[in-house]
């Protein structure tokens, strides 16, 4: 990497993990994000809530460039996402450069997306071996430690189809952690789970938060947001309606739209 990719002059330095300025995203004529401004600080648990179709998942996917933004600026750890700025011109990053940045951002999906042809431990080892070129032995040792941490050391040899939803999601978290990310994105991690399995996944996430991991969590679990969250944003129709401390926003919402939404989910 040359120093051209380093922090552009006008980007924030040393400060927030994620910074969004007027982020726009549209699919054809449909505008999904209509100007999102927000800041996620280091070691913060940042909760995104809102009705389905509000653009919260889309915004999350913009952060690791699974979706391209059409307008505004988005920085992760002081570096532009998907582009680099030279002078006053933006240049698209090559696939390889995008992949390089994604290494440091873990993502957990609603539908787990474990690799079904690999066992739990192979799922966790895959990226460290393929991307970071770790030796298989070292990657396996690290993977076993991570499975231990999410309480699944005994299931290392199981294929995903032999695991319950909660177990699969915990393996998925271990898989993301194996790349030693500085930021973790959670896209409705408990929405596809049976109610009785939600707790085990939230416990793992709570543990991560206590260790100081920066986390952005799209969720409908208001209890989790209130208890663990440091900041909360309520989105609707592609804009941020309300934001602040989760305990304050959830108990005393200022906007009519937030009140209406919360009265339905709480």
């Amino acid at each position, binding site marked *: 990497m040359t120093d051209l990719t380093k922090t552009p002059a006008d980007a924030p330095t040393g400060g927030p993990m994620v910074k969004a300025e007027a982020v726009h995203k549209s699919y054809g004529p449909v505008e999904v994000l209509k100007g999102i401004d927000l800041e996620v600080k280091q070691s913060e648990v940042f909760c995104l809530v809102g009705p389905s179709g509000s653009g919260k998942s889309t915004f999350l996917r913009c952060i690791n460039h*699974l979706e391209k933004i059409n307008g505004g600026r988005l920085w992760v750890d002081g570096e532009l996402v998907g582009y680099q700025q030279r002078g006053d011109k933006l240049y698209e990053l090559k*696939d390889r450069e995008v992949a390089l940045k994604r290494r440091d951002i873990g993502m957990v999906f609603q539908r787990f997306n*474990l690799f079904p042809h690999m*066992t739990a431990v192979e799922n966790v080892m895959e990226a460290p071996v*393929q991307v970071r070129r770790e030796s298989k032995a070292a990657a396996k040792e690290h993977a076993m430690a991570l499975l231990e941490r999410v309480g699944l050391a005994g299931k290392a*040899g199981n*294929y995903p189809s032999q695991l319950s*939803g909660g177990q699969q999601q915990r393996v998925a978290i271990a898989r993301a952690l194996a790349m030693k990310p500085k930021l973790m994105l959670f896209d409705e991690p408990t929405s596809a789970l049976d109610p009785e399995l939600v707790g085990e996944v939230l416990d793992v996430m709570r543990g991560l938060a206590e260790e100081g991991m920066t986390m952005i969590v799209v969720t409908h679990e208001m209890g989790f947001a209130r208890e663990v969250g440091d900041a909360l944003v309520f989105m609707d129709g592609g804009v941020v309606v309300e934001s602040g401390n989760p305990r304050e926003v959830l108990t005393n919402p200022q906007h009519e739209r937030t009140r209406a939404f919360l009265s339905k989910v709480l």
Partner: protein
Amino acid sequence: MNSSEQGAVKSRRPEPIKAVPVRHPGRWAGAAVIAVLAAMLLHALIFNPAFQWDVVTDTLQNEQILRGIVVTLELTVLSMLMGVAGGVLLAIMRLSPNPLLSGTAWFYIWVFRGTPVLVQLVFWNFLGALWPRLSIGIPFGPEFWSESTNVLIPTFTAALLGLGLNEAAYMAEIVRGGIQSVDEGQTEAAHALGMSRAATLRRIVLPQAMRVIIPPTGNETISMLKTTSLVQVISLSELFTAGHDIYSRTFQTIPVLVAVSIYYLIMTSILTVGQYYIERHYARGANRTLPPTPFQRLRLLFGGRRPAPKAANDVVPGLEGGGHV
């Protein structure tokens, strides 16, 4: 059901049910009809002198036929290898975001799938009539090296080019279907981990696509085994052409063709068994338990009682109860 009733049922275990099983008289009648028909067919085959079974057995041991089998197998294996390798390459090109690559693949498939393989075989064999010499050099500039086309492409190579390049076009569509059958979430998860497009394809998408690709590929291989007989038009002596040579001398057409067919049947049977095991290998993770091997199935049929199903991999002792999504 209220809870006290439930408790009562739980406390005393019910007796196992003894009932008269449903009778199937239709099945027995059908089986009898088929048995009679099979006996008639066998009788007609064995006692019809026109089949000349002594000629059939002689032909089975004929040296020209045996050499033909080797050529048939070589052609099948090599042209399928060409077909699979070419097919994977073409499928990846076809799915590429680069319009030049996908357009080229589209054009290739259009030409090679759209013309008879017989024509392609003849074309490659008579390439020398179109371009007597092939050379390497700067396009539209000087040549560094050249060779006579007929020396460069002998009959066997022409057969291989004809069959393999044609097969690649079909395999491309099969592989493309397999790749597209893999859930997009898999690609996203791999990309989110920082894996490159190539690594994602090789490590994540293709292994899962194999489950969809293998059955039609087995079909193609069996089909190829028989399509090799078309190289008779360029006089390459594989199994069918060897038979053809024999019966055009002896005029014992039917017995020779019966012998040749017996060999084709044996070879396709072996391929079918091989395909079964390859499919079983790629079922890892897709099924919770692997299907039984043919031998296990035979044992089931004659052994009577069903053994406990084996878990899909040997490392795992068993499943934890409940909670599957």
